């Protein structure tokens, strides 16, 4: 992980020449990277500093940070911000717990393991919008599969309008996300599991450690980098969530996410400046969270990597 840097005092002429060569060779890809990544982001930032009204379509007025101030002082933004974090917190923690359990199961030696590994990944292969529609149908009042089964069995929840109330609607959105992406978390954690050498476990067994002790003291610490990696991926994804609430509730009952807010302003209302500011705010939120992750949890990745060496 650590990048070795050569102190300038020790650079010889040959080093410099090599560096120049390296720069020349990487320059084309750097330019392409800049075009692909930096230009659209830069353009979005520029757009967010302007006001485009429907009347003046195509013409902009520079308004500085007005769009940001408007967003940050609006209830809509903070409501969406809170709901998105609630969603991310719930779904990512469930996905990590279930994903770890699933990975442990798939790591056991048993017949048909490879088949099961493929089957388990199926939900992840389904397009989110399609699975969202399936979940919507299942929780449809009166005729949905879930509501029907619950009411036939006389269980609570059969007469609930799941997508018509905040708590229940959020629960369905979280469930749909957990169902779909737990296999992804499991896959990453499984990769981490397979790196742990069998000798470590043999040693533990010789020392007379119980199954639980082995799990808590050996498996879990060694799995940490994989779990953190899964957490970073999933959190970044969850904070950008759009399709699940869009299909399931259209943002009703307090389930509007940050991305949905940006979409409404950009596409439905054609308010390019306001929408871009909201996109940039979403982008910044995701970035800040990732930096925090790497700063605090990423340290573990490095520590463990060092220990392993």
């Amino acid at each position, binding site marked *: 992980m650590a990048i070795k840097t050569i102190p300038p005092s020790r650079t010889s002429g040959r080093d410099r020449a090599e560096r120049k060569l390296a720069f020349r060779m990487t320059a084309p890809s750097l330019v392409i990277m800049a075009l692909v990544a930096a230009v659209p982001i830069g353009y979005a930032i*520029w757009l967010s500093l*302007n*006001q485009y*009204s*429907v*009347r*003046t*379509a*195509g*013409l*902009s*007025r*520079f*308004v*500085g940070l*007005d769009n940001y101030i*408007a*967003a940050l*002082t*609006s*209830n*809509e*933004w903070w409501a969406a911000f809170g709901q998105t974090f609630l969603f991310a917190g719930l779904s990512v923690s469930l996905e990590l717990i279930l994903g770890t359990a699933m990975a442990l199961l798939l790591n056991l030696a048993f017949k048909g393991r490879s088949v099961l590994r493929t089957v388990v990944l199926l939900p992840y292969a389904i397009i989110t919008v399609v699975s969202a529609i399936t979940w919507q149908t299942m929780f*449809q*009042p*009166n*005729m949905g599969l879930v509501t029907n089964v619950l009411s036939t069995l006389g269980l609570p929840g059969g007469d609930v*309008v*799941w*997508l*018509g*109330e*905040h708590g229940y609607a959020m629960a369905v959105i979280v469930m749909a996300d957990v169902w779909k992406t737990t296999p992804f978390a499991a896959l990453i954690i499984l990769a981490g599991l397979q790196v742990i050498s069998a000798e470590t476990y043999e040693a533990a067994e010789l020392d007379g450690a119980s199954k639980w002790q082995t799990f808590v003291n050996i498996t879990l610490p060694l799995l940490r980098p994989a779990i953190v990696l899964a957490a970073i991926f999933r959190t970044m994804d969850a904070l950008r969530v759009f399709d699940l609430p869009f299909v399931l*509730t*259209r*943002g*009703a*009952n*307090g389930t509007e996410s940050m991305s949905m807010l940006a979409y*409404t*302003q950009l*596409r*439905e*209302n*054609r*308010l390019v400046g*306001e929408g871009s500011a*909201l996109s940039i705010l979403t982008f910044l939120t995701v970035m800040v969270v990732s930096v925090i992750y790497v700063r605090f949890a990423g340290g573990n990745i490095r520590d463990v990597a060092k220990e392993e060496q």
Partner: protein
Amino acid sequence: MDLNRPASPLQSQNNAATPRNRKGLAAATAIAAAALILSACGGGAAPQGAEQAAAADPASGANASGAVNICGVKDASGIYKGTAEAFTKANGKVTAKYTEIGATTDEARTQIVQRLEGKSTECDLFVTDVIWTSEFASQGWLLDQTKLVEANKDRLIPSTVETTKYQDKYWGSPFFTNAGLIYYQKDKVAKPESWQQLYAEAAKAPGNGYVYQGKQYEGLTVNFLEMLYSAGGEVLNEQGDVKIDSKETRDVLNFMSDGLKSGSADRAVLTYNEDPARLAYESGDFGYQRNWPHVYRLLNATPLASSFAVAPLPAWEGGKASGVLGGWNLAISAHSTNQAGAVAFIDFATTPDWQKHVAMDYSQAPVNEAAYSDPAVLQKMPFATELLASVKGAKPRPISPVYPQISQAIYKNVYAVLSGTASMEEAVQKMAEEITTAKASF
């Protein structure tokens, strides 16, 4: 929405023009210059606006030739392609073709906006949803069809023509229309004469309930406006002033939310758009359903076929029934390279003869009144009389270039009242505020 604030950047630039702030001024000028360059890349100089738009010449259609490209949403019923083919055959000199540019209504709008903003000449005609007229016309994107509409006026139902109006001019010709209907189980419940009577009947027995489109989306705006219009309320008046903060709005909101509490309507309607409402109704557990005419054919294929009947939308007690118009118009692009061909196509599509095919072959509501009493149409569409009553009584949705924002202000706040997350008073005030802000953003 609170997010749309009319900013005053020109003011702040003027303030910067003091000697001490020359650098600031220079920077602002540079940025403004850059803005102009960027916006020039993005689509050119100031938009023409509706005031300077060119007009379509009704006489030009007769001498038209060449090819006409019509663009719009995915052609599920085949009506657009069918009309293009029939036109090409009948006209002989002009060939028309239909290009699908979006799978859904929303996607089609985005695609059309992109083409219009980029002054694309790909499409001569656009099939436009009735709620897009003001926005497109205000941008100078469409050809003024006032003369054409006036030439064809005697064969068009007046309410359908109203959906193409913006600032006293017509910007499209209606192609087919749409209005809400009430489907009811004639052996269980009575034909609805007023909303009050419908709701009272619906609450009488568990199987009598009413289903409508109560999800937070455009459909809820339509359901709410149908009731508001029949109660005599309005969103914007003729002058465009916001009139939503009224006794009628309060009455309707109270009525709708009481209806959910008393069991006239199932709480599940809060999650229904058109299709789930239809499916719930097909289970046979409900007495009334509000939906569009296309449901007739689908309902006829279910066990309910023999027991249901169709009625126009009811009136508010003591008032006159008034629904909300849906439907699709034909708008000529301001950048069309074959405007005469487009006029010829419109002439054909709105003829009384072709309008009969619109009903018989594609089950859509014609814009020609005579079609509704044609025996061949009545055989295919036995509820044509009820449909005509709904269409003739219906009014357009609020006419404004920022209609999407106005609709959001309506459906979000109506939903908040129905789901019980906001008080009625709070919602009415927020609705009025948000509509005012939306209007100011134009």
